[in-house]
């Protein structure tokens, strides 16, 4: 189980939280003016990267606060968590992702390799 740092309560087991999907997706302020396609992007389409992912969590069995986190989905390593009101951290401020190839596995920490690649 992951350990997630709630910006308000500190590190807690993941079962206290609920994941809220991708972060920094804003609801169109003018829904009537966007096209069906643009609207569908907001309703149904979310990024699904292997690597650095900005996501939302809510401390549902705790303070009930929503917050954002940055996680490497190829290793599940959480690089940062921050309050909703904070800006999106720039990738330069984060540790580099472990990915060796665009769709590949990190050298260590993923599920697929037990033996050191030659």
């Amino acid at each position, binding site marked *: 189980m992951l350990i997630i740092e709630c910006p308000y309560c500190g590190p807690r087991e993941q079962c206290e939280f609920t994941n809220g999907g991708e972060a920094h997706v804003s609801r169109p302020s003018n829904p009537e003016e966007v096209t*069906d396609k643009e609207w569908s992007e907001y309703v149904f389409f979310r990024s699904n990267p292997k690597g650095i992912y900005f996501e939302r969590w809510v401390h549902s069995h705790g303070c009930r606060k929503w917050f954002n986190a940055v996680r490497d989905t190829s290793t*599940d390593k959480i690089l940062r968590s921050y309050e909703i009101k904070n800006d999106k951290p720039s990738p330069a401020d984060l540790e580099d992702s472990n990915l060796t190839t665009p769709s590949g596995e990190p050298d260590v920490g993923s599920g697929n*390799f*037990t033996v*050191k690649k030659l």
Partner: protein
Amino acid sequence: MTAQNNKDVTHIAFHQSINFTFDGVKYRGFKGDTIASALIRNNVRVVGRSFKYHRPRGIYTCGIEEPNALVQILSEHNEPNTRATIKQIYEGLEVESQNCWPSLENDLGSINSLLSPLFSAGFYNKTFMRPRGFWKKVYEPLIRKAAGLGKPPKPFRTTSTQLHHHVDVVIVGGGLSGLLAAKSLAKTELKILIIEQDGFLGGILKNSNKISTIENKDNKLWIKELEKKLEGLENIKILKNTLATTYNYINHLIAIEDRTTGTLPLDGNVDQILHKIRADHIILANGHIERLVSFRNNDLPGIMLAGSFEKFIQRYGVIPETNPVIFSNNSSCLSLIKKLIDLNCKPQAYVDSRSGDKIEPELLKIIHKKNIPLFTNAHIEGCDGKKQVQEISVRDAEGIITKLKSKMLCVSGGFNPDVHLFTQSKGVLSWDDEYLTFKPDKSFQNTIVLGSNAGIFQYSKIVNDINTKLSFLDHEPLLEIDLTLNDTDKYSIEKLWETKHEKESRWSKSFIDLQNDVTTKDLRQGIQEGFDRIEHLKRFTTNSMGTDQGKISSINALGIVSEILDKKVSEVGTTIYRPPYAPLSFASIAGRGTYDFYDPERKTSIHEWHKKNGAIFEDVGQWKRPWYFKSHPEENLYEAVQREAVHVRKYAGVLDGSTLGKIEIKGSDALEFMNLMYTNNFSKMKPMSARYALMLGEDGMVMDDGIISKINDKHFIATTTTGGAAKVLSHMEEFAQTEWPHLNVFLNSITEQFCTFNISGPNTRLIMEKVFKDIKFDNENFPFMTFGNFTYLKSTVRILRASFTGELGYEIYVRPSIALKLWEDLFRFGKDEGLIAYGTETMHLLRAEKGYIIVGQDTDGSVTPHDMDLEWMIGKNKKDFIGKRSLTRTDTIRSDRKQLVGIKPIDPNDIIEEGQHIILTSSIKPPVKMLGHVTSSYVSPNLGHSFGMAVIKDGKKLIGSKAYVSSSSKGAFEIEIIKPIFIDEENKRLVS
């Protein structure tokens, strides 16, 4: 030549005999014996049959790695697949061998062994295909009947429990390295947990003869003193009989503690504890495992790993055989030979695959001194014997075969660091060319690997290794430690995975996986067929897929494969090691979280009253809700509902609606927030009035409904469906916090703070006036969809005039502490007016007669407000609300979508069933085009016939026409499609 006791051990109480049975025969062992050591003591060699060929199998190892000796424990609910090499005996233990019929001695399944040339790897996939019908009727049942090892256990209710630990350091393994690590960390402030799978500390110091003194003290004394010291420290805790099985992400370790070692587990007592451990650092000091060598008939009972043989002597005080033949490709058998000589037993021969100049001088010296026949540069070609080893064929350097008569062969194929936990942690391995094994390389988590587990097979290097790896923890560096060895300081090994058969026969076999009967021939065949990736080969041959997960042989398989493919072993790679390290009992994983603790039961404050008054409950989410009330014990659901439904419309009834979700919305922007969350417009609504409201998802589909009570623009109370309460609150929270944080709004669940009673029926007003004497309930003072706060028993109650039955009705919100009192008052005053309590089923019927929908029953996440004929609930002139934009997509603006209608049978005797479909023909020969389905249906005593609500394609246009509905018992029958309202279309009763 038989087994002999070695009384010079501390873990067997030779004065304490224990009686147990194996396959119905009584045997005697001693306190501390495992089933395996006790059987060996009794000269029992054959303990089971193999999975596929039903070959006789004996005890191969002395620990958790055992592939063969799996037994059924009759005295413990028939627990199957128990390792005889782990399970300790106790008085009255009953053990049975597995996978044999009719008996271990004469197993009919062994005919498979004769047919074995046919049963090679992948065999099932290429056969059993013809004739066509035979697969299902003949072959498949036969294959399935042959499945499995042990017999199913008997019902067992878990009594195990779970414990959580949060520590700085976990040391897995209380052997030499683990103890030295603990010693060096003892003086730190770190909180340390030591996990030891055995009932005692010491590992190699006790399980082998390799080290005789440490720091100039006898091993046992040294351990005793150190253990005493560690136990005296507050920061160190030692868990014995505890096996670490799973290494999860973020240094989360699962370990299972056996609390009943050597005793009969008593039902109701805690028999095992699952420890869940979070640690900053995990030290893996869990040692190594010995591996086998494949040769002809290397599965015969009487063949045992050399290290295990030594462990039986050293730890269990039993010499399985006084004159075994010993076969090795490495330096490790020196300690065993020395031990046997010390015990006045002499190996019958020593066979080493290495040439004489590579063999350690010390080993050669003792062999020469004791005149032990020596074969160097030699292999075991194979073994023969009917049910156990009788003859051993040794092939020397010149290729000459010598046949030795012997009943026991000890084999050492070298050592592997036990890397299972390390790879579970997602660390990666690298191949060690010197020791011919995989060892931990790069770790992904805070993992430290020590001793032989790190691939360090040199005693003089252990201390330095610990000092280097633990220095960052400010440990106290260890000084060099004096060891007296019966072993060479440095281990050396020569490559040998398999020996050649002298004569190839279709029946001759060299096993690589003893439990799954995988032979080296199977590996070759797999590769020949193209399964040259190790994961393919594993799946094709089932190599290392047994309950031992190939602990003693998986590296050998890689070695063999690398040679066939002419690749390096590191290029072949390993298969992925799956947790758990050893099979983990379901009961321990479940812990206490079953039955009473599976999921909480939520009960209303009136629950006991309901029970006393004949309520039958239904589960709605976690809630127990009265489904219907029996007026007499023989009354069934149908009768009760018919009675209740008539009664409410005629007199009055009350429903315990306390389970409805209730959310309080407060803040200066509450009005704006509510206007965004719900379809309705609350702006012009008067304070202290209420409105039926609809909540959509962003996809425009109906998500929930409820009544919104407006106290003022800054304060609302919303009710939700029983099942939707949590979802609605988190939906609101999500938008309040993430989308519109600028809105000043606070949300709180008040579901448990109030009980809700829904009272309705023509006599309701009379009853209310009697209970609440100061309140005026007439239409003028208390119109429909208004509410007020009143005082009752010095407490505030909120009364809302609303109805879900279509009759005159009120909802009373009252504090739980006085709820029962009020409920009883309702009945005290309502008795003369015919008040009854009714359940959810009657509520469903009554609301359906009125055409009110239930979200989750009449909707399924695919209907819009328009589909439900609820467009009147969409606030006009509202620029935005959640889901609004989705209502104008091409598919949602179609006019022929599925829409809500009412239906009634043409023949009043026909009964419409929920979930059946509206179709256009009376024939139900598939495929039948379906217009939609019946979402709700009831037999109405008020209408005198069955009726239903349905969601059907282009429904609004079809009103007034006829169609058919399918049924579960007879084809289809004709119905009329009507408006979805059946009673009081003009709302006269509602506002009466």
